[in-house]
């Protein structure tokens, strides 16, 4: 598969190391359709290609939105892109968040750091059909208040009467008036039916593991929890062998897994 070159419509710096690109497709073509949780391989011409989850609304077809954290040469090149610059897109790849499994159930979304970006599309889907779901809770943890992603949007979500939003940081200065503590400490703040809720978690692997344990302590079953995993990817179509996690290829069997199915492998060090 070869990349299709989209064009940068808009760029926005979200936090000190994270930015969002708004992309339009080549003239005369439609924006690719994706499901929440899927990713594209984004190609910075001549530099390289990396897997990035789509962070926009799957129901919105005018442009393609990716939120990217600058961590290396390729993402550095992407941060330098300006309006009108080309960016190669291959995809969408991977499976998606099981949002429909949340019908008539409470839905709990737990995000850590940049993990809020791959989860945002599922929240958009839920809000588009809010009446189909029970209570909807968003728990978000990050390092400091300056690292809060999509802050304005979080505030507007919190203003919804039928959405419960709790944000916490690992540490803060005096000007922060919100919660300080690990993301696990805000789980008790949320009201949801632990025996039947659908839980979707995305963030650093350690954060996902300890969040799962904390949820278990609150009576949530491992078959109610979905996590999004990440591995090195080159081909994104199951040929190159890079993204293996035990017997699974994260690019096509994942990146989203029901926790009880991945647990034996997920908890082995350096697997």
């Amino acid at each position, binding site marked *: 598969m070869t990349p299709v070159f989209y064009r940068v419509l808009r760029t926005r710096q979200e936090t000190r190391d994270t930015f969002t690109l708004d992309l339009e497709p080549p003239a005369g073509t439609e924006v690719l359709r994706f499901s929440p949780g899927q990713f594209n391989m984004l190609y910075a011409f001549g530099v390289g290609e990396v897997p990035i989850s789509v962070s926009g609304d799957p129901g919105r077809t005018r442009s393609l939105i990716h939120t990217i954290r600058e961590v290396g040469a390729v993402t550095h090149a992407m941060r330098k892109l300006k309006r009108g610059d080309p960016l190669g897109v291959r995809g969408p790849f991977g499976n998606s968040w099981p949002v429909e499994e949340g019908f008539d159930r409470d839905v709990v979304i737990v995000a850590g750091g940049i993990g809020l970006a791959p989860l945002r599309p599922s929240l958009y889907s839920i809000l588009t059909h809010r009446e189909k779901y029970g209570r909807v809770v968003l728990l978000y943890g990050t390092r400091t208040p300056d690292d809060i992603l999509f802050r304005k949007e979080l505030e507007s979500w919190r203003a919804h009467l039928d959405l419960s939003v709790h944000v916490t940081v690992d540490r803060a200065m005096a000007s922060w008036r919100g919660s300080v503590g690990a993301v696990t400490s805000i789980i008790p703040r949320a009201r949801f039916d632990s025996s039947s809720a659908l839980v979707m978690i995305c963030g650093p692997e350690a954060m996902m593991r300890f969040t799962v344990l904390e949820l278990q302590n609150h009576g949530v079953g491992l078959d109610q929890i979905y996590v999004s995993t990440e591995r090195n990817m080159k081909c994104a179509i199951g040929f190159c062998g890079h993204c293996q996690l035990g017997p699974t290829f994260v690019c096509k069997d994942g990146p989203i897994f029901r926790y009880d199915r991945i647990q034996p492998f997920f908890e082995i060090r*350096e697997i």
Partner: protein
Amino acid sequence: MTGQFSEQQRILESGHLQKLIEALSNSGHRIIGPTVRDGAIVYGDLNSADDLPSGWTDEQDGGTYHLKKRNDKALFGFNQGPDSWKKFLFPPRTRLWQADLKGKTPEITNEPATEQKMAFIGVRSCDLHAIDVQDRVFIQPAIANPSYQVRRQGAFIVAVNCGQAGGTCFCTSMNTGPRASKGYDLALTEIIEGERHYFLVQVGTERGLEMIEKVPTRSAGATELEKAKAVVARAAGQMGRQMDTTGIKDLLYRNYRNPRWENVASRCLTCANCTMVCPTCFCSTVEDVTNLKGDHAERWQRWDSCFTMDLSYIHGGSVRTSTKARYRQWMTHKLATWIDQFGTSGCVGCGRCITWCPVAIDITEEVRAIRESEERIEETTEGHHGNT
């Protein structure tokens, strides 16, 4: 494939093998087969049957390989060398596409499919299975690797049944040989008795039949069929290694934390030889390169190995940094997770990884050690029960 052609068994005199090669060459095939080079028998282009390793054999063991002269003129009297047919079906370096920056928009030029079709001479049964294993990787129901598919469909396969087994062979343990049973166009069994030197030819496909009919052969007699069977039986009885594959998938799934991994890690150099010589290893990586002006870019694919730190690198570091984790990944993938991914084992018992490991790590011994470590734990538990 063989069923309908099982009546088609011919005898080809060794001197006429050249005619088969010519027939293949005249129909546009690039002829590839074993040849002696740099002290080993490797697969390369053949100009004629004279390029075959006539009268050569090899002696192999853990970390050991050298050629030895035979006392006959057998053309295929040796076992596996350091390379396999994956070198041709899944080349070590290929360009995927090129792109040029025209104004602000890059334009991609795909690679044209201009490769010549190939004829493989002397494919051993283990390698036939290895090709099938790689078919399952690259020709999948959902999405297939198009260039692999083209090369694969064009490849004419002349298999060879082994007449002897090597010091590191264990195809019988993996049910992959020594007799070629499927996946070939023609299969040869070399028989030498005194002055007589001929091949029993088994036809595998329609196009195999068409090709052999261009070459002088006569039909095989009962004694010749018996002799061919004896040749293969001799090889089956000489296996240098053995692997018990009973419940091997679950055995390895249970033992991710076995201390044996530390033991093998203390020996393993992570040199990646095993992955390069293995006929089923398929890890590859992609390199994006540009010219100095930055207006021309190319994407190249090349072989990779799970023994590199780079393979599992994600921002912040590699997932598998320790040697232990990387060796464990290779072995558990080859023997266990491969089964869940592709429906067969990834190992065909060719023994190359044992021969070409500089420190002679032996995959059959590692499996044995893990199995035995479980038996020791059972014994210990029983012992305690006895004492209380």
